[in-house]
């Protein structure tokens, strides 16, 4: 009996055997799915292939802030418009959620009972109500704004209606590029000043007003240059013509609803992550730094936050991923993102469901992996460096 099981009692053989078995079953399953799909597609006379990407779309997409889109453009361009719109709402949403989440997380820990309770209620409400409902709620509120002909006028230049927020659009004239160059140079030099000041402080203990000098470089110098060059910028104001405002810059209610819902929802999670991060730094650290005479703001900036970040960043990364993936709910309010445009309209007009879905999934996967990649680099840079 024992001799029969001889192979099996060998740990190495056993592990190879089971691993081969699992891989084999997986490959078999994959093969079955693919062959069944292609067989059924063929049987139902559904054409497959990628050539549809080069065909004209035939429909219009109005929300395309970065690329001009016409109905004669191809489905491939529909895809790019969708990717850009997805990135637009994801990036702006992540930035807003981070800022709001950090503020709320810190306020939640404040000794002010009322403030802390208010944030608690906010967090519990927004993270326990499904995101889809929040998106629809924001959109329904925005739709109830005045009609375009009765737009609210703010400061004489902004117009608010249920068609969106219209503002003047800056038009850059020749000469403005010098201002841009000045800003870039100022950014680089403030970065260098920061490094130099840190080194000097490490060596001599002397401090340099990095913050105020950077502000001066980045804002004041380009501003002076701007006026010396004779203000090479003008504004195009939105004007009511026929049915809609023409000209100017417009932010659509579909985008605003998505942006608000995504950032408010995710900020609730981020604020809890920030709170956990700060609380993970032991009380003794705070007391010790107070004992050596550091100011409250310095304790936060130099002692608490750097240690808290080690706890905060990994779960923060997954919140960014969540927000990006949740942006696919834009379809509920007609926000022209990747799923709505390419994964919805193109899919339906061409009937190439498998191809479109495969592309959309691969795209989300790449976006998510890219976010993870950069957040991991950042995470490594803030980890405790053992000497």
């Amino acid at each position, binding site marked *: 009996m024992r001799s029969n099981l001889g192979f099996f009692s060998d740990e190495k053989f056993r592990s190879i055997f089971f691993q081969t078995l699992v891989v084999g079953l997986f490959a078999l399953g994959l093969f079955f799915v693919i062959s069944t799909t292609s067989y059924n597609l063929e049987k139902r006379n559904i054409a497959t292939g990628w050539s549809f990407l080069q065909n004209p779309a035939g429909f219009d997409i109005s929300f395309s802030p970065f690329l001009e889109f016409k109905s004669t453009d191809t489905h491939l361009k529909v895809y790019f418009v969708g990717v850009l719109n997805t990135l637009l709402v994801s990036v702006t949403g992540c930035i807003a959620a981070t800022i709001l989440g950090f503020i709320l997380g810190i306020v939640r820990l404040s000794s002010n009972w009322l403030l802390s309770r208010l944030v608690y209620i906010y967090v519990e409400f927004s993270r326990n109500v499904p995101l889809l409902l929040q998106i629809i709620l924001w959109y329904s509120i925005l739709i109830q704004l005045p009609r375009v002909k009765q737009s609210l006028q703010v400061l004489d230049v902004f117009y608010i209606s249920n068609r969106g927020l219209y503002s003047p659009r800056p038009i850059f004239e020749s000469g403005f590029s010098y201002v841009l160059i000045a800003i870039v140079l100022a950014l680089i030099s403030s970065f260098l000043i920061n490094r130099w000041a840190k080194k000097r402080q490490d060596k001599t203990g002397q401090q340099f007003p990095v913050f105020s000098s950077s502000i001066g470089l980045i804002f004041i110098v380009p501003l002076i240059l701007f006026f010396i060059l004779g203000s090479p910028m003008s504004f195009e104001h939105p004007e009511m*013509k026929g049915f*809609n405002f023409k000209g100017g810059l417009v932010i659509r209610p579909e985008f605003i609803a998505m942006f608000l819902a995504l950032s408010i929802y995710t900020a609730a999670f981020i604020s809890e992550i920030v709170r956990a991060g700060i609380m993970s730094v032991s009380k003794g650290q705070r007391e010790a730094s107070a004992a050596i005479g550091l100011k409250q703001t310095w304790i936060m900036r130099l002692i608490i936050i750097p240690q808290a970040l080690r706890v905060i960043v990994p779960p923060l990364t997954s919140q960014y991923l969540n927000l990006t993936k949740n942006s696919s709910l834009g379809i509920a309010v007609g926000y022209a993102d990747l799923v709505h445009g390419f994964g919805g309209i193109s899919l339906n007009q061409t009937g190439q469901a498998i191809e479109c879905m495969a592309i959309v999934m691969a795209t989300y996967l790449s976006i998510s992996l890219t976010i993870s990649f950069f957040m991991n680099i950042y995470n490594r840079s803030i980890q405790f460096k053992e000497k």
Partner: protein
Amino acid sequence: MKKLLSIFAVAAFAFSANAGTLDDVKNRGFLKCGVTTGLAGFAAPDDSGEWAGLDADMCRAVAVAVFGDRSKVEFITTTGKSRFPTLASGEVDMLARNTTWTISRDVNLGFEFVGVNFYDGQGFMVPSALGVSSATELDGATVCIQTGTTTELNLADFFRLNGISYEALPIETNDEGKENLFAGRCDVYTTDASGLSSTRAAASNPDKWKVLPEIISKEPLGPLVRHGDHQWGDVVRWSLNAMIIAEELGVTSENVDAQMSSNVPEVLRLLGVEGNYGEMLELSNDWAYQIIKQIGNYSESYEANVGPDTPLEIARGLNALWTQGGILYAPPFR
């Protein structure tokens, strides 16, 4: 390898349950019919919660043909976008869902349109207060448009052809379009003219809305089935044709019993008194008699659901019989 592949092909065949839709339907005991999410006059629940409308009648007619019972049908709602995957995957046996017959849907998507139960065209609806009398005056307007439809493509063509611009507001369902139009998020709603009449009829004050005179496209709406199952296609096709032929012959739900002893040969063939046309379709011989008895002929269904006496107030127009100035025409029953 070749052998393995064929084993898989057989296995896959066993998994795809659309070998014979008619047999599947008979075994299941009821028909699964894909309809809209609610479009008054075509398919929408009535006051008692029963599905009613021209398309709903189409579904019921097929159920009657197969089972002799108008209640043997499950209505499955589909959006403009979900309808084709729902049919292709076998979730429903047929679609009767204001679907326009086009070459790409017929050929490339792998479906088969079996006929036309409503000849429609795309129109525009605006608030009367907007002061617009023609679609060509709509330069710069915001247009509510259902995505994934032929109307979406016609809209782009129309504005391009006339050299005017518009802003598209994509929506998913007719209700969403209604909501956005009534809230003023868009100036214009465009869809099939029948859909506009239906939407207008559902408004709290229909006089506030105006359908513009332009009809910018041909929209032959009809039931469809999966391509390749010809037997099932025939059942649906002839259920529709039977209703049209009945109108042509003057057979109604009221007089159908009396017509059993008619002296018109085609009436006798239609009602199954002569010939064995039911058997050819693998149905009972009185299938058409039951459709007319339980649903009525095309005219009865039309007048009850969308005709001038209903809130939709759509005149027969193109949908009148070919003998009465329309283009409704069914092949002979012989």
